[in-house]
């Protein structure tokens, strides 16, 4: 029976069994394929304009092309990669298992969300194929609504539709967490991954509809040529910015909170310790989610917003630093007295702590109004959010992917290549983005195709770093793909972790649990025997 155990992957091999599946694990994998496609697309755009930026003048492309490339990079990376990345892939796959449930509360809605996301993605892709969009991912009016001469409508509708996919996922998560926990699995026994997804889902449900209506208004303004934000009719372009950032700032937390959840899981496992201050870490996710809704105005300090509004938004933005700092300190404290092993996922997690610390601290510069005036819309901001989004979320995503890869695929990747790649990516990332802090403070504005010569050295460094980063990602793609076919088969619990997902076979059976588990221990209880037992070959 060892070789023929059925699990969610081999239960059925037809295309239809994937396209019409309601299994959260398969849907998670379908999401993985879809978002990696968009990650590749956004990455290609980034490489192209990074190469162009090696010289101060125009060498490879016209300004129109350059503008379309950075817009394409922003839209695909944010709306079609980062927002769905951890929730729709790892969250979808793991959340029900971590709760001891057989599936999410609404499996059909989950499948529908993938289709909706894919339709949105295809429209976004269409906007690129039919000539691209040149508004930047922020779609500022009146440029986007009246002046831009590109495929704004397609891109806007794509984002509008993909937004509903995230709402469906968020709704599904909240209901599942509330209603489908296994017996004994109380709120404060939940893994922090689940807490992080709970907080994320709240933001998704309350924030996403606002960007949906905002972006729809821009599309309507263009399609029917009516003035909604058009100053010529008395419309207010700054109103658009308020509505836009009301979602898009909390969206930053949609993009980082799940990453924090992943990091908590990895650090606990590879130091064999319960996360220090578990409750505070759980609550800090909620605090970030709630505070996140009241800080959008810090994107608008120079937009002609009133000085007093600016002050309120500034102090509230500073307050977000407190729960974020608590998380970082608590992760560090968890390491103390642990039994630390530097396997690939742990390297990503430690990289996350370092990069997120820099990303978070530079956020303080931007919350400080007097500094913000100078660095707003410069490369300083670009560096800051890449430290949070790439240094934070993408590191966490790949850390989590490596951590749960044996569980998802039943195969091991090459641990040595994994560690080398993690280090390559860490170095490449810093080389790409650290110089951008400096050139930003020196005054280099973002979204500049042609720039003064004195900034060239920093751009050359950045492009060199991007090349290293690209090599790292390609290497990762190669060994992960290789592992799918030739990787060593994984046992039930290869990392010796506590957590319900490690109590079931790898890959899991379709119904996850034959018998509903009963949880009578706290989260990350590494005094349990099963964290030390050698896994027998368990294809039973």
């Amino acid at each position, binding site marked *: 029976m060892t070789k023929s155990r059925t699990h969610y992957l081999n239960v059925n091999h037809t295309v239809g069994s994937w396209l019409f599946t309601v299994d959260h694990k398969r849907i998670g994998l379908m999401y993985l394929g879809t978002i990696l496609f968009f990650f590749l697309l956004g990455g290609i755009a980034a490489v192209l304009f990074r190469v162009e930026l090696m010289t101060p003048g125009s060498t490879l492309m016209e300004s129109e092309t350059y503008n379309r490339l950075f817009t394409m990079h922003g839209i695909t990376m944010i709306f079609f990669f980062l927002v769905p990345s951890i929730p729709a892939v790892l969250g979808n796959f793991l959340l029900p298992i971590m709760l001891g*449930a*057989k*599936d*999410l*509360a*609404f*499996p059909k*809605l989950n499948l529908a969300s993938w289709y909706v996301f894919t339709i949105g993605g295809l429209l976004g892709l269409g906007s690129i194929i039919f000539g691209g969009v040149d508004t930047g991912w922020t779609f500022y009016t009146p440029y986007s609504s009246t002046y831009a001469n590109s495929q704004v409508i397609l891109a806007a509708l794509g984002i509008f539709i993909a937004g509903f996919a995230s*709402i469906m996922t968020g*709704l*599904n998560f*909240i*209901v*599942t967490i*509330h*209603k*489908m926990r296994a017996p004994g699995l109380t709120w404060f026994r939940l893994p922090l991954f689940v807490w992080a997804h709970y907080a994320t889902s709240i933001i998704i*449900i*309350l*924030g*996403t*509809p*606002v960007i*949906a*209506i*905002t972006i729809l*208004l821009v599309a*309507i*303004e263009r399609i*029917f*040529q*009516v*003035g*909604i934000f058009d100053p*010529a*009719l*008395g*419309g*207010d372009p700054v*109103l658009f910015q308020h*509505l836009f950032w*009301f979602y898009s700032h909390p969206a930053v937390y949609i993009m980082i909170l799940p990453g924090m959840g992943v990091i908590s899981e990895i650090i606990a496992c590879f130091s064999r310790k319960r996360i220090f201050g578990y409750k505070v870490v759980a609550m800090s996710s909620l605090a970030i989610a709630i505070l996140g809704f009241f800080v959008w105005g810090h994107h608008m300090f120079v937009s002609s917003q009133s000085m007093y509004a600016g002050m309120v938004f500034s102090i509230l933005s500073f307050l977000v630093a407190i729960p974020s700092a608590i998380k970082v300190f608590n992760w560090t404290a968890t390491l103390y007295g642990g039994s630390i092993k530097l396997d690939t996922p742990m390297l990503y997690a430690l990289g996350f702590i370092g990069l997120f610390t820099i990303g978070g601290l530079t956020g303080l510069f931007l919350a400080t109004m007097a500094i913000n005036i100078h660095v707003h819309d410069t490369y300083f901001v670009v560096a800051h959010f890449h430290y949070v989004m790439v240094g934070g979320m993408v590191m966490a995503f790949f850390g989590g992917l490596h951590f749960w890869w044996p569980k998802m695929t039943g195969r091991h990747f090459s641990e040595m290549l994994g560690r080398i790649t993690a280090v390559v990516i860490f170095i490449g990332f810093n080389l790409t983005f650290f110089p951008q802090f400096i050139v930003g403070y020196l005054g280099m504005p973002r979204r500049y195709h042609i720039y003064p010569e004195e900034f060239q050295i920093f751009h050359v460094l950045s492009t060199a770093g991007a090349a290293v980063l690209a090599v790292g990602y390609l290497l990762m793609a190669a060994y992960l793909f290789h592992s799918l076919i030739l990787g060593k088969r994984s046992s039930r619990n290869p990392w010796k972790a506590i957590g319900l997902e490690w109590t079931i076979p790898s890959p899991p059976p379709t*119904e996850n649990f034959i*018998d*509903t588990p009963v949880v009578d221990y706290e989260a990350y209880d590494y005094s349990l025997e099963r964290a030390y037992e050698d896994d027998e070959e368990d294809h039973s």
Partner: protein
Amino acid sequence: MSHDASHPAHLAHHFDSPEQQNQSSSLGMWLFLAQEVMFFGGLFVAYAVYRFKYADAFAVASGHLSLFWGAVNTVVLICSSLTMALAVRCGQLGDKRGIIRYVVATMILASVFLGIKGLEYAHKYEDQLVPGPQFEYVPDFDSYSVPVTAETADPNFAGHVQLFYSFYFVMTGLHALHMVIGLGLMVWLIVKAAKNHFSSEYYTPVEMTGLYWHFVDIVWIFLFPLVYLVWRH
């Protein structure tokens, strides 16, 4: 925790009990309505900003709407909420024919609403009050109790009136779209009821559609004063 022994047909495989399934649906629906509130909320905020900025133009523009038909539609929609609530009541009692009867009644009322809305849209189209390049607004201040008089068409004033109509069409249009989706749900309910899927133990779809329908109704309760009554203060 296997439930092979007493597994009702309507209980999905991943739930342990009908109560868990019903509570999940209910929580899911409320969360869906929460996101709907934010969706319309964003729209209402944008409307409110302009209404505050261009109070007179919005009042004048609103005066061109037919208060009569707006009021009739409000009554029609409230009645449809009543019939929907009665359908849910029939669900609780396990009365399948009653569900079909009241759902059909709700659909008829909804269609009446949409018909009237369509007539109003057509009228606005004839009056060239549909925003866009063809928009043409000739002020007729005398007919309305608005404290503004001006002799010629003021292009800015007309611009603000156009803003009002942009919001009028977007807000009522999205509301109408929600109603059309509701009509689709009701067709599905009738099919399920006809196939004997409902009982007094299981009528969750009727209850959820009811919640959705009441929400659509409440949106209109906000829309009606916002767009029809602004000049009657």
